[in-house]
């Protein structure tokens, strides 16, 4: 239907199709072919992580079919949300080519503050969470100040922060070392039980596809109105349809067991929010620009310092939020919170998901995809009764593979002139 409409407008009349040397994809088949070409030239996007995920899930399912059971997947989603939110913050700093090594300790401080303020001091939950988040924001502000005022590499400043925050966490928790959150409280049920109602989960599964379709059609009409090339109607319709089918199937499957956790819903909402901010706002554009070439960004009139502040503050704040969620998931704020592998899992998730360590490349989705990979490995190995020693080694190997794929794709992009 649409391909006819496309052919009616001769290519030369379009503003962006005057160069005859370039081939453009307009129809569905051509779009698929263009995608293949892109992948071949090393512009992989989220493809490696999706392939990896399919591989990991297949292996675990073959070894132990329980892995793919709806009940286990619901648990997986609960576990993803806490570290996933921390990984989301990591995406922000990686985007600038910076790093925050203290997110683990920061999340520990977040959970400790919640425990102390809410359980011990009796403050209302929202206030306790608010103070936790403020502590995170303040820490991020310190890192940004050290980076912009003294030119201190974030690697060092956050390493120092890691120790300082760990000390602060132990100081807060005192001699008892652990504060239990009361069972039956709203926080604990949020972390362990609360599920999006079945009807609402189906409605929410329909929303992304609908929004995508409406936006696609509107963009198409606007582009045609100003003589720019537009995607064919088929392409505009097929993608949202596939997405909707996928989401409904997934939600339906999860609803066979308990359903979609609210906690995961909050996580996905944050991912969507950050994705919008990074791709559709001036702030996001500035993040990419500063990550790609800070000097060019400065000369273009961008306030580079403010961008650094925003990224570090966002990262530390999201880390504390992750810590608060982790406390509600475990029903306790302990000395162990945020230690061990939280730090590296969060960073690994962002990298595995496809955010470059070198800055200027990445997306909010990488936190979601990456954390699902990492938690799948952890979850699958736990089902196999393997000790954590094996889990660490396998996660390390997967991280190495992810970085190798990223480096190879980078080389391929360079040789195809698409760096």
């Amino acid at each position, binding site marked *: 239907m649409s391909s006819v409409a496309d052919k009616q407008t001769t290519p030369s009349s379009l503003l962006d199709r005057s*160069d005859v040397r370039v081939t453009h994809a307009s129809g569905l088949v051509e779009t698929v072919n263009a995608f293949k070409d892109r992948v071949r030239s090393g512009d992989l996007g989220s493809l490696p992580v999706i392939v990896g995920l399919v591989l990991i899930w297949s292996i675990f399912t073959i070894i132990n079919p329980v892995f793919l059971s709806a009940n286990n997947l619901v648990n997986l989603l609960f576990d993803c949300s806490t570290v996933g939110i921390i990984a989301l913050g990591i995406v922000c700093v990686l985007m600038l080519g910076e790093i925050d090594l203290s997110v683990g300790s920061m999340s520990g401080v977040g959970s400790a503050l919640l425990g102390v303020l809410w359980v011990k001091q009796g403050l209302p939950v929202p206030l306790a969470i608010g103070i936790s988040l403020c502590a995170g924001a303040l820490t991020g502000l310190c890192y940004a100040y050290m980076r912009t005022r003294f030119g201190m590499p974030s690697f060092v400043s956050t390493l120092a922060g890691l120790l300082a925050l760990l000390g602060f966490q132990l100081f807060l928790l005192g001699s008892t070392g652990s504060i239990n959150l009361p069972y039956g409280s709203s926080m604990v049920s949020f972390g362990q039980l609360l599920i999006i109602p079945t009807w609402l989960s189906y409605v929410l599964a329909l929303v992304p596809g609908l929004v995508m379709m409406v936006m696609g059609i509107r963009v198409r009409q606007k582009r045609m109105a100003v003589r*720019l090339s537009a995607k064919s109607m088929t392409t505009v319709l097929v993608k949202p349809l596939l997405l909707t089918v996928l989401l409904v199937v997934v939600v339906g499957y999860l609803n066979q067991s308990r359903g979609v956790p609210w906690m995961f819903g909050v996580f996905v909402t944050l991912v969507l929010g950050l994705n919008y901010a990074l791709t*559709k706002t001036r702030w996001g*554009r500035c993040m990419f620009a500063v990550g790609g070439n800070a000097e060019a960004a400065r*000369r273009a009139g961008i306030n580079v310092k403010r961008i650094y502040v925003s990224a570090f503050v966002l990262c530390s704040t999201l880390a504390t939020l992750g810590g608060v969620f982790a406390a509600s998931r475990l029903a306790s704020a302990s000395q162990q919170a945020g230690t061990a592998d939280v730090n590296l899992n969060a960073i690994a998730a962002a990298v595995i998901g496809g955010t470059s360590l070198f800055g*200027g490349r990445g997306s909010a989705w990488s936190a979601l995809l990456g954390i699902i990979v990492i938690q799948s490995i952890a979850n699958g190995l736990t089902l196999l009764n393997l000790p954590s020693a094996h889990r660490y080694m396998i996660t390390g190997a997967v991280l190495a593979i992810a970085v190798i794929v990223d480096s190879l794709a980078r080389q391929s992009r360079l040789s195809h002139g*698409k760096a």
Partner: protein
Amino acid sequence: MVTQEASPLAARQPLLSLRKVSKHFGAVAALTEIDLDVYPGEVVALVGDNGAGKSTLVKTIAGAHRPSAGDILFAGQPVEMNGPSDALELGIATVFQDLALCENLDVVANIFLGQELSPFHLNEIDMEVTAWTLLNELAARIPNVRDVVASLSGGQRQTVAIARSLLLNPKIIMLDEPTAALGVAQTAEVLNLVERLKDRGLGVIMISHNMQDVRAVADRIAVLRLGRNNGVFTVDATNEELIGAITGATDNAVSRREKRLADTKQVAGNSQ
């Protein structure tokens, strides 16, 4: 496109005038009593040896340096510039030698960097249309404005940098070594571009070490030497005159080399 009516230079008012502009860095006098006029629709080439003060002058006009003494007049009015943004507001755009583009962003994003339309919901469509309009006015050959800048050639990047400087409708555009890193074809493209800017009625200040490029597009050639004016030439000036002005002597490395070559030829001729 704006085309300026042809009128004798003297009858028109210069867009930009520098009157006895000096710039000192401590004890070092980088610029001493520089005079320079740029008229609309005119290309002024700024030449001089390394350390002659070209970059300091460009930075002074771009608002990055404040002159220690002297006046800068824009359209006849004396102006005070306290930073690059003041110069931009007046309508003085600068394309730096390193172009300052973000390679990871596409052409549209680079052209609109820092000037994006509707900051809370980027208006990609209008930005793309404006980008195409700017590039088409420059007769630029960019295959796709949604390609990242990393995939463009040197000449195409130069075009993108110039298109970006045109976004705010400047009256004067300064190009710092626009052909330095370019091949033959790309250099020709950039020179065409400079001519088109001139046809649009912009005043162009072009810095270059390449006399051939300078002669190809410039209306006047202003020579700087050791931070002072050392003559303004027309393109009819001979190479000897220009090189003499640049190096400060008729007896210089270039002339000695030419003399030596001529001598060896003569000797070879005599021996036959």
